[in-house]
């Protein structure tokens, strides 16, 4: 199974995401923001970082990268897509996911080990988890506060499209403690915390992020 990892100028966690893909049992394929094809990948990850320096708004310029029109098209046909942190922001700017990520409520960049609860384990990225399973993975961003209008929030909640929530005190002011969501079809997932930084206890707070990467292997094998 081949999972593409996209590098935009300013992407930082691309090598980490690729490492996690391999640890999860899949093959990784590097994709460049200017690429004109997706090199036959079965799924795509948009990793964290500061693509285009977060100029204008986080993810606002990346959505116009050539590779993004291919991602939008493939996502429309059901290809699994995971956006982590800045990748989540790009997915929102691309309208593959609703809502927006705004400045953390305390206005500081925040890097800490964060407990989250997986509340939807039916997406191709979350099947390795049990519903309600709690995991600890790094949260690290300056603009991680998930915001949307009341109608959208009701839709997300009503359709079970919130995939993960923060546990305990709200770290950044996200509505309904939302840490991650999925689209109506369930193949596109955006997640603020970083599962790729929790694939072993040596370099991360836990190995509990690995489930996102074993999930995608299972999803594609089926």
């Amino acid at each position: 199974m081949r999972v593409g990892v996209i590098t935009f100028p300013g992407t930082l966690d691309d090598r980490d995401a690729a490492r996690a893909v391999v640890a999860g049992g899949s093959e990784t394929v590097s994709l460049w923001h200017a690429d004109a094809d997706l090199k036959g990948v079965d799924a795509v990850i948009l990793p964290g970082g500061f693509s285009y320096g977060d100029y204008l708004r986080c993810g606002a310029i990346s959505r116009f990268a050539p590779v993004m029109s291919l991602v939008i098209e493939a996502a429309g046909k059901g290809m699994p897509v995971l956006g982590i942190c800045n990748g989540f922001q790009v997915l929102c700017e691309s309208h593959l996911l609703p809502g927006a990520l705004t400045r953390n409520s305390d206005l500081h960049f925040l890097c800490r080990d964060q407990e989250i609860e997986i509340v939807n384990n039916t997406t191709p990225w979350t099947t390795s988890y049990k519903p309600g399973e709690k995991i600890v993975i790094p949260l690290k961003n300056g603009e991680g506060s998930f915001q949307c209008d009341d109608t959208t929030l009701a839709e997300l909640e009503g359709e079970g499209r919130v995939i993960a929530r923060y546990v305990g005190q709200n770290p950044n002011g996200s509505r309904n403690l939302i840490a991650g969501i999925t689209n109506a079809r369930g193949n596109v997932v955006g997640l603020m915390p970083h599962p790729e930084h929790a694939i072993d206890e040596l370099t991360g707070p836990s190995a509990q992020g690995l489930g996102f990467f074993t999930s995608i292997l299972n999803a594609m094998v089926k």
Partner: protein
Amino acid sequence: MALDTILIAESTPDTVQPFAELGLKADEYARIKEILGRRPTSSELAMYSVMWSEHCSYKSSKVHLKQFGEKAPKSDALLVGIGENAGVVDVGQGYAVTFKIESHNHPSFIEPYQGAATGIGGIVRDILTMGARPIAVMDPLRFGPADAPDTRRVLPGIVAGVGGYGNCLGLPNIGGEVVFDETYIGNPLVNALCVGVMKHSDIKLAKAAGAGNLVVLYGAKTGGDGIGGVSVLASETFGAGGSTKRPSVQVGDPFVEKVLIECSLEIFAEDLVIGIQDLGGAGLSCATSELASGGSGGMKVALDKVPLRDPSLSPEEILMSESQERMCAIVEPSKIERFLEICKKWDVTVTVIGEVTDGNRLEITWNGEVIVNVPPRTVAHEGPVYNRPLAQPAYIDQVNSQKVNVPMPSGASEIKAAVLKLAGAPNLADKSWVTTQYDKYVQGNTIQAQPDDSGMVRLDETTHLGVAISTDANANWSYLNPYQGAKLALAEAARNIATAGARPLAVTNCLNFGSPEDPGVMWQFAESVRGLADGCLEMGLPVTGGNVSFYNQTGSVAILPTPVIGVLGVIQDVRKRTPMSYKTGGLELLLLGETKEDLAGSEWAFLHGQRVGQSPDADLAREMRLIELLLEGNAFFTAAHDLSQGGLSAGLTEMVLRHNVGATISLSHPAVDLLSETPGRVIVAIDASKVSQLQALATKYSIAISKLGTTGGDSLTINDCLISLDELRTVHTSTFPRLFG
């Protein structure tokens, strides 16, 4: 202003030139005229003024710094030594590691966010320039009193700047220091360390060889920011009034630097450059003269080709601008096409601005007219050298002859109050408010970061080879005795690495002092350098490079002498490191090293407003035996934690809170045992079955050993004094949020 060319300079020898405004002294100006055999053009004057500044030329420190070479221990590890952008050491398995600390003190006081941000940017480019991929940063910081209004302006800005720039570059921040003292109130210290890794064959140097090779400028366009930063800002004492000098602070764009890093690494990987230099302090003046001086000496540059953000800049301003995120490379004509292609891929602006020439003159033209024609060595490497007067300041005898007179706690309630006072003291309190603003996870190789004793990163995912780094300075001891203070800081940094199981290998430094024109400050500096050079020789650790920051003083008040020492060590298998704390109860806690009544320069004395007495003497032979003990014991230690500021009290606080597992401690002289800061001590946690093994090691290495107690429970209990972990944690963690929001 009309263009000042060589022809005009020759025909108008008596033109009055503003050398003093540019920071040059009259005799320095006279020497420039003597070198050139005429008055300098305004562009030449601009170049000499920035390159002969204290910051760039090390003119006051050079005569002392040469000791690092003269007293250098034999080392097989040193691949590139002092003088290049950063030193490089061999860490085995074909890997070379480069690391260095730089100061960005003065700009960070004026404009905290940009000053700190560009401090990170500058040191990262130094590391990149050696051919290495930057893999981590650290930030030793000093501020005025924690509750001073100006600290509330300076600290949040500096922390946000360090984080804002480093996070955006994708560099994990793996450690640093935050220390408060009133002498830093107008002079905060922002020291930034970067470490990078490469293969031996990839080392790059700053030299322009081969006539006909091209001089290529790439990265950001040149603007009007940071003009004269090194001369106007970093090489003068701040006056009480006067202009704010804000235009002399550089403005950074980390996104441009991130792209520049990736672009440069791709260029290096294809072996497309002969020599390379980043543009930092003194900008193009520095890069062109150092590249030419590092090679055979000849270079021609067409300054009008430099891409500008602000087209109104004059040639002098272009030469002095410290605009960030720029690099200058020497490229063979046959490779320029590929070089340009890679820059295009990364959308990096690139311009051929000149070529290497035969001969030994650096010639710079502006629209065809020659505005600079100098021997580059006189600009870059043969600047003025001062043997400044030095004299032991009067305070030394005065403070050394006094005894520390502080209340010593007795009884459970006083001991509890003392432990809590230290736990919540700004210098010892939990620094999460700072470190949560830094990304420590990016790149996925961070093994240890703050609050661990040292930062540790993995270099190789297959062999698990890693490096550990610690930076330390104890300015209180350096104030009482600068010679011993430097040695003690060196020993502490080395110990902080060894507790984790890494073997110390090499040293870098950032020497922060007041004005070198004050004989007392100059004496502090000379003594510190002597101490560090002697210490490195004794410990067998080569100094690979460093940085000097003078003029950290406001009016006549200088900062405490603050030599920040960084030690890098190697660990063969990061999976086998010893962490700084334990996760279970039932373990034995033992203290390695003897505790004497060392309260002079201690945090306890500081909290009682006392900076008197005699600093401890560094016993480096014993420190080296302790390091060997730690490296051997690493195989069976559960945890090991260095004792430094705050002594045993702070050490225990940090250990029990790390994983929220308490300890029961029994001390025969609790006040001195808890508060003394005798150097060379480490707390070790081990399984009860390993105690005899540790005792045997202590005997083998002649290190004192004593039993402290056992781990477990939800309190820190010292004799009959019980402190719940909840209370201890609340005190330890509430200080920074209370002070800084």
